[in-house]
C-alpha cells in the first residue's frame, strides 16, 4: 500500500448553522483546500461523511451536491454513512483510494445539521442507530445506553460523579481555547456538582449522567485533504502521515455483550491502528476521543490502551489528561464542548490532530506533538474507527 498524508485541514465553527447543509460542507472544504495549497494539482475524489441529512434535512447524495457546489466536476464522489463513525470511515475510504493507487488527492468532508429539527426529534434520529427490536422499540436512547453503561462502570471501577465532572470541566476549559468549539462556557465543580444549586444547573439526563456529562447537539462541518506521497512531497508542506487505521465491530445490542463495560471494538480497532502504525499507546503525544458522554472518555482511554482498565479516572484526577498533562485528551474540547455534529465528528478529530502535529493549534497547542490518536465511536461501540497520525520530519 502507498503511504497517505493529510495535507490540508479545515472546519467551521460548530454550533448552529445559518446556511444550508451543502454550503456548510463547502465552508469546511474550502479552507481545507486552501490549507493544502494544491495549486494545479487536481482533486480526484470527494467523499462526504453524513449520518442523517436524508431524514433531518431531506437531502441525500450530499457528496454529489458538494462537488457541484465546489465546481469540482467531473471528480468521483460518494457519501459514507456509518453512524457517528461516519467521519473516520470516510477518511478510511479516502485512505484506501490513495493507498491502492486509485487516487492521488481526495477531499473528505464531514457535515451534519442536526439543529434543523427540535431536540425530541434529533434524540429519536440518533436513537434510530440502536438495535431496532431489542433496544429502539423499548425507548432506548443513546443517553440512556450511556447512563446504564456509566452505572456499571462506576460500580465496577469506583468511578464517581466527580471524575465525570472533571472530564467535563477539562473539556470546557479546552474549548475556551478553541475558536471552532460550540460551547465557550467554563464550568466549575461547585456549579455542576457540589453547590446546592447544582441540581438545577446540572439536572439528570439518564442517571448517573447529568446535563454536563452529555455533548450538545451541533451543526458543523470539517474537512481534510488526503494525498499520496508524491503529491505531499510536491506540496512541500509539513507532512502528517495517516500512519494506521483500525476498525472493529461488536454486537448491535449492548446487552448481548459478554461484558458490556468492555469496549471491545475500541480495543480491537485501536490495537489494529497501532500495529499498522508501528507504534504503541505510550508513544502517543495527543489524543482525541469520542466523549459523547464523559464516561466514554474514561472508558475509551482504557480500551485504547492508554491506561489500565479501571485506572483512567485516577489519571483524570491527577490532571494527566489536561493540556499540560502527560497525555492530553481532547485538546479541542472534545465532543463534550467542541460539539458533536455526528457525521462531521470523526473528520473534526483528525482536523484538530493535524493542526496539533503541524503546530497550528494556537492557544491549545501541545508542545512538540509528533504522534496523535483518534477514536471515532459509532453506535454504542458497535462500530469503531481508530486512527494514528504521525508527523514526519522532512
Amino acid at each position, binding site marked *: 500500500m502507498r503511504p497517505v498524508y493529510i495535507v490540508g485541514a479545515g472546519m467551521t465553527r460548530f*454550533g*448552529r448553522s445559518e446556511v444550508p447543509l451543502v454550503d456548510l460542507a463547502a465552508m469546511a472544504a474550502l479552507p481545507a483546500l486552501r490549507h493544502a495549497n494544491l495549486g494545479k494539482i487536481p482533486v480526484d475524489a470527494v467523499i462526504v461523511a453524513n449520518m442523517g441529512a436524508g431524514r433531518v434535512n431531506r437531502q441525500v447524495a450530499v457528496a454529489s451536491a458538494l462537488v457541484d457546489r465546489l465546481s469540482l466536476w467531473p471528480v468521483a464522489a460518494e457519501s459514507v454513512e456509518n453512524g457517528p463513525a461516519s467521519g473516520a470511515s470516510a477518511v478510511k475510504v479516502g485512505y484506501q483510494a490513495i493507498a491502492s493507487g486509485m487516487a492521488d488527492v481526495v477531499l473528505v468532508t464531514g457535515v451534519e445539521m442536526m439543529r434543523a429539527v*427540535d*431536540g425530541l426529534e434529533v434524540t429519536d434520529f440518533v436513537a434510530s442507530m440502536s438495535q431496532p427490536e431489542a433496544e429502539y422499540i423499548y425507548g432506548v436512547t443513546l443517553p440512556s445506553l450511556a447512563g446504564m453503561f456509566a452505572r456499571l462502570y462506576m460500580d465496577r471501577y469506583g468511578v464517581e460523579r466527580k471524575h465525570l465532572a472533571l472530564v467535563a470541566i477539562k473539556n470546557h476549559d479546552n474549548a475556551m481555547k478553541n475558536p471552532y468549539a*460550540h*460551547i*465557550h*462556557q*467554563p*464550568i*466549575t465543580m*461547585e*456549579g*455542576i456538582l457540589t*453547590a*446546592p*444549586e*447544582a*441540581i*438545577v*444547573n*446540572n*439536572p439528570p439526563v439518564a442517571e448517573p449522567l447529568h446535563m*454536563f456529562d452529555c455533548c*450538545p447537539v451541533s451543526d458543523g462541518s470539517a474537512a481534510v485533504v488526503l494525498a499520496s506521497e508524491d503529491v505531499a512531497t510536491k506540496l512541500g508542506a509539513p507532512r502528517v502521515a495517516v500512519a494506521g487505521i483500525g476498525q472493529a465491530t461488536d454486537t448491535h445490542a449492548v446487552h448481548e455483550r459478554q461484558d458490556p463495560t468492555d469496549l471491545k471494538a475500541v480495543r480491537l480497532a485501536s490495537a489494529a491502528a497501532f500495529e499498522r502504525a508501528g507504534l504503541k499507546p505510550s508513544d502517543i503525544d495527543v489524543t482525541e476521543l469520542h466523549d459523547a458522554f464523559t464516561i466514554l472518555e474514561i472508558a475509551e482511554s482504557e480500551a485504547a490502551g492508554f491506561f489500565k482498565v479501571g485506572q483512567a479516572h485516577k489519571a483524570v484526577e491527577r490532571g494527566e489528561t489536561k493540556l499540560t498533562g502527560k497525555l492530553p485528551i481532547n485538546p479541542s474540547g472534545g465532543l463534550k464542548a467542541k460539539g458533536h455534529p455526528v457525521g462531521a465528528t470523526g473528520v473534526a478529530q483528525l482536523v484538530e490532530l493535524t493542526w496539533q502535529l503541524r503546530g497550528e493549534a494556537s492557544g491549545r497547542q501541545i508542545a512538540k506533538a509528533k504522534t496523535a490518536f483518534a477514536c471515532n465511536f459509532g453506535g454504542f461501540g458497535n462500530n469503531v474507527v481508530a486512527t494514528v497520525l504521525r508527523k514526519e520530519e522532512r
Partner: protein
Amino acid sequence: MASVTDLETLLRPPAMEMPPYPPKTITLASGEQMVVRQAGREEMPILLEAIYPLLLVERDYYDIVAARLYAELLAYKRYRVKDEYVLVGLIDGVLAGLVNGRLVDAKVGMSYHTLTIRRGLRVGSHLFAAKMEYHVETCGQEEVLIVAESPIGFRRWMIEYPLDKKYEVQHELGGVPSWVLTRKTYFDAKPRLVAGRRPISAELLAGAQTIRLPGEETVRRQVMGEKGGRA
C-alpha cells in the same frame, strides 16, 4: 370638568399591595453568582433598552417574546397594567435575564414572560422558578396561569414541572389556553427546580443595585445560540 390629574387617575389601574421579592443569589454552573432581585418601575428604561435589539431576532421566538415583553414593561413604566412586577438576574451587575408577571387577584397569578440573555447556564430556568417562588411563597397565591410561546418554554415549564392544563381559562397573552402551576406542583418541584440562597451579602447586593447591560452585539451573539461567552 375633570383635570388632567383626574383623568390620569381614571386611566391608571388601581394598585394592590404587593410584597417585595426578597433578593437571593444563585451559584451558576460557571461558578458565577447570579443575584435575583425585583426591578423597580424606575429601572424599566434600561430594561427596555436591553430588549430592543431582540425585537427582530426570530430564533427561538425571541422576537415575539421581546415585543410582548417590551409592551408589558412599557405599560408597567407608564402605569397601564395592574399589579405587575419584574425580576432580574444579574451577574456582576450585568443583566443575564428577566421575568415578569402580575397578580390577577390575591389568589391567582398571571405569568407573562421569561427572557434569557446569557444562555447555556439555565438562567431562564432559575428566573422562571424565582417568578413562581414570588407568586406562591412571597405572595401566598394558590395558582399561577402560564403559557409558552416557544418549544423551549414548553419543555421548561409544561414538561419539567410539570404543569396541569387549565384550558377553561384563557390566558391574558392570548393564543393557547392556560396551563396552571398550583401550590402542590410548586412545592413538589421545588427541590429540583428552585435554587438560591438568602440572605445575600451586602457586597453582592451592592454590586447588583445598578443594572448594567451587555453590549448590543453581545446580546445578539448570546441569544443567537452561542453557549456561554462572557459579556
